[in-house]
């Protein structure tokens, strides 16, 4: 990617000499496959493939073993489940091989661990040197996603092979529905991966800004939400009344004529006056021809709307946000001159169209803008907590760059992915938690290279406890959907800070048995636990297992809401959490501090000082939350921080009254 290495301060990691054994780390990417000809898979300067690697470069249509090298060390494909459901793969439409016909897998794998490529851009936008987060790590592609989707039988087979092949990090930018862990094939598969020392990073989902929309919430998975970076692709819309609005666009073709063009709203020029989305064949060509059309966001793919307008004879398009997307602007490489506008500007433009006798507009494009502030902001689409499956585990774990990310692309499809888009690009700019997930996967590879002995939980802990929640001016990271400060339900522990994560001071480590104790706390039967553990594990009847005791780097406390509304019960409730910290730094003493926005919750930590005399020494503490009842639906947040003056080991706390 261009810009995100700078945005994340990654140049400091090489200056600090943290590259370590990064080239020994293998990132497995479970996705749509790989386009091996990308320069991002150039293996110049890389030593021999790690001797522990047992993977293969499978042969198939348009793909053979020579497509792999010392960078792309493995490539496999899994289609038996897909073919069983859909019938034989149509090889005219997609390659029955690891080759990426979609682009998504090439984007995610190059984001995680692509080699540096100078002169990268999309039509001149976001130009610079594109780099993965771990430029020296190796990539192994596991293709499980096909034109009709990704099936859990294939995903499970891919995880199975990845474990056998010897990957260290698994990056999975995919998701399905939520279900109990013992019925969830991906939760079961990733548990096995974790047991084999593999860190699994998964996308949180794009269900935001609605609450409780998270995917991939198993506590052994690192769940990644998305934020913006300090880069934008401005476009300017000037109305006939002289008012100008700022939007974004990746359109690079011929601009519309200088003179203003007639402006219409899709709902007024379509077959159905309730359809403002510019869905396929919805527009009446005679009413659209030669005009700029305002299409509301949602329903169908954003770039597809530009194709619908173009096919109806339109000259330009304004993509209008409604309240679901707020002021979030996602840039697309439209097929005609077009720009996306935030909700407020969109409402103004629509008001103008409905009131002016002959509404007109002009669209102009501003290239690439850097240094945009505030950044990051939480992306509107990023799925939000609370975690409805296990409310006492706070998810997402953290956020990372996921908006307007430039990375490698398939040579098979154009940047919009539409069949009508015949443009070919080596890099594309796209958005989603799919894009933030491989950032964290690559950063996890960076940490694994620097600290090969760290467990997946230790790496996740380092990434979480060192992430940040405020801008340099001290204000909390904002949520672009609302414009107000975001909360741990939006960003988890915060935005990833890889430089700090390399030296976290302390980590919350967790073993596979700890997760099985967590399942005991969920009252899983021995039969259900056997499904997860693939071995006998008996919950000890003498032990009182509690979800609160899973050694997680964050806290989510749930309280009973007041009964009977305003005049209801105000009985106080106390919940206690136990945690164990492991010293991964020098001998030192840490002091705890708590910051809370909730005066209704009393927080006490015992002990308040922890002294570590040696490396890997463990110390435990308890934190007690005492709360009065609050109305159902109330939420509040706090942070708990251990510091030795040099390190800050910070955990978010989310309180919910239900």
């Amino acid at each position, binding site marked *: 990617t261009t810009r995100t290495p700078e945005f994340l301060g990654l140049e400091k990691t090489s200056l600090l000499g943290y590259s370590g054994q990064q080239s020994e780390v293998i990132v497995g990417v479970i996705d749509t496959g790989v386009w091996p000809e990308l320069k991002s898979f150039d293996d110049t300067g890389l030593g021999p493939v790690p001797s522990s690697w047992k993977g293969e470069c499978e042969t198939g249509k348009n793909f053979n073993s020579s497509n792999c090298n010392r960078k792309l060390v493995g490539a496999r494909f899994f289609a038996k*489940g897909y073919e069983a459901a859909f019938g034989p793969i149509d090889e005219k439409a997609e390659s029955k091989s690891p080759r990426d016909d979609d682009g998504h897998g090439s984007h995610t794998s190059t984001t995680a661990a692509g080699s540096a490529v100078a002169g990268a851009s999309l039509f001149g936008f976001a130009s610079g040197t594109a780099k993965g987060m771990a430029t020296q790590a190796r990539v192994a592609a596991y293709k499980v996603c096909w034109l009709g989707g990704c*099936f859990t039988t294939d995903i*499970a*087979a891919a995880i199975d092979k990845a474990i*056998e092949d010897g990957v260290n990090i698994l990056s999975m*930018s995919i998701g399905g529905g939520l279900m109990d862990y013992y019925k969830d094939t991906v939760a079961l598969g990733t548990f096995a*991966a974790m047991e084999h020392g593999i860190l699994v990073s998964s996308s949180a989902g794009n269900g935001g800004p609605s609450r409780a929309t998270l995917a991939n919430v198993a506590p052994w998975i690192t769940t990644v939400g998305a934020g913006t970076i300090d880069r934008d692709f401005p476009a300017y819309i000037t109305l006939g009344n002289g008012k100008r609005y700022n939007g974004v666009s990746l359109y690079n073709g011929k601009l519309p004529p200088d003179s203003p063009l007639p402006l219409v709203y899709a709902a007024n020029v379509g077959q159905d006056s309730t359809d403002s989305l510019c869905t396929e064949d919805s527009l009446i060509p005679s009413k659209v021809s030669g005009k700029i059309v305002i299409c509301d966001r949602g329903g169908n793919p954003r770039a597809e709307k530009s194709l619908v307008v173009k096919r109806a004879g339109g000259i330009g398009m304004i993509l209008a946000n409604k309240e679901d997307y707020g002021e979030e602007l996602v840039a697309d490489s439209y097929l005609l001159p077009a720009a996306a506008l935030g909700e407020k500007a969109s409402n103004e433009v629509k008001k103008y169209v409905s009131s002016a006798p002959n509404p007109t507009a002009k669209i102009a494009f501003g290239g690439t803008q850097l240094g945009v502030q505030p950044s990051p902001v939480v992306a509107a689409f990023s799925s939000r907590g609370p975690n409805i499956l296990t409310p006492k585990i706070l998810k997402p774990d953290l956020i990372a760059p996921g908006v307007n990310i430039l990375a490698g692309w398939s040579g098979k499809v154009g940047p919009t992915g539409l069949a009508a888009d015949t443009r070919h690009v080596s890099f594309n700019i796209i958005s*989603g938690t799919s894009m933030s997930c491989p950032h964290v996967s690559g950063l996890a590879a960076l940490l694994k290279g620097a600290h090969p002995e760290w467990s997946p939980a230790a790496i996740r802990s380092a990434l979480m406890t060192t992430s940040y929640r405020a801008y340099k001016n001290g204000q909390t990271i904002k949520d672009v959907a609302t414009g107000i400060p975001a909360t741990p339900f939006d960003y988890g522990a915060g935005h990833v800070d890889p430089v700090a994560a390399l030296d976290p001071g302390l980590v919350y480590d967790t073993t596979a048995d700890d997760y099985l104790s967590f399942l005991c706390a969920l009252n899983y039967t021995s039969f259900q636990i056997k499904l997860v553990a*693939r071995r*006998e594990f008996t919950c000890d009847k003498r032990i009182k297992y509690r979800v609160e005791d899973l050694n997680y780097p964050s806290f989510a406390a749930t309280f009973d809401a007041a009964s009977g509304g305003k005049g209801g019960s105000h009985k106080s409730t106390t919940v206690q959490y136990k945690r164990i910290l492991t010293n991964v730094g020098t001998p030192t003493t840490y002091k705890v501090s708590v910051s809370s926005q909730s005066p209704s919750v009393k927080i006490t930590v015992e002990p308040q000082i922890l002294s570590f005399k040696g490396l890997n020494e463990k110390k435990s503490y308890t934190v007690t939350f005492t709360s009065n009842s609050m109305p159902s639906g109330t939420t509040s947040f706090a942070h708990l921080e251990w510091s030795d003056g040099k390190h800050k080991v910070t955990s978010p706390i989310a309180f919910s009254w239900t």
Partner: protein
Amino acid sequence: TQNPKRTYIIHMDKFNMPASFDDHLQWYDSSLKSVSETAEMLYTYKHVAHGFSTRLTTQEADLLTKQPGILSVIPEVRYELH
């Protein structure tokens, strides 16, 4: 069709394999054949599960659930890119 098939992942209790089998793959195959003459294994899983995936009718899946050594019969789910 009246008996449409769908894909399932079958989890087996590998450590309680009957002594009459030398190999767990034989045992998987025998269990599958006990409910369907025609069903074939799509994958056998080694690490993520002890078991295999196959296509079965609902009745066959129900029948398989009741066989000894079967821990779970989980229907396949479709995931999507994020």
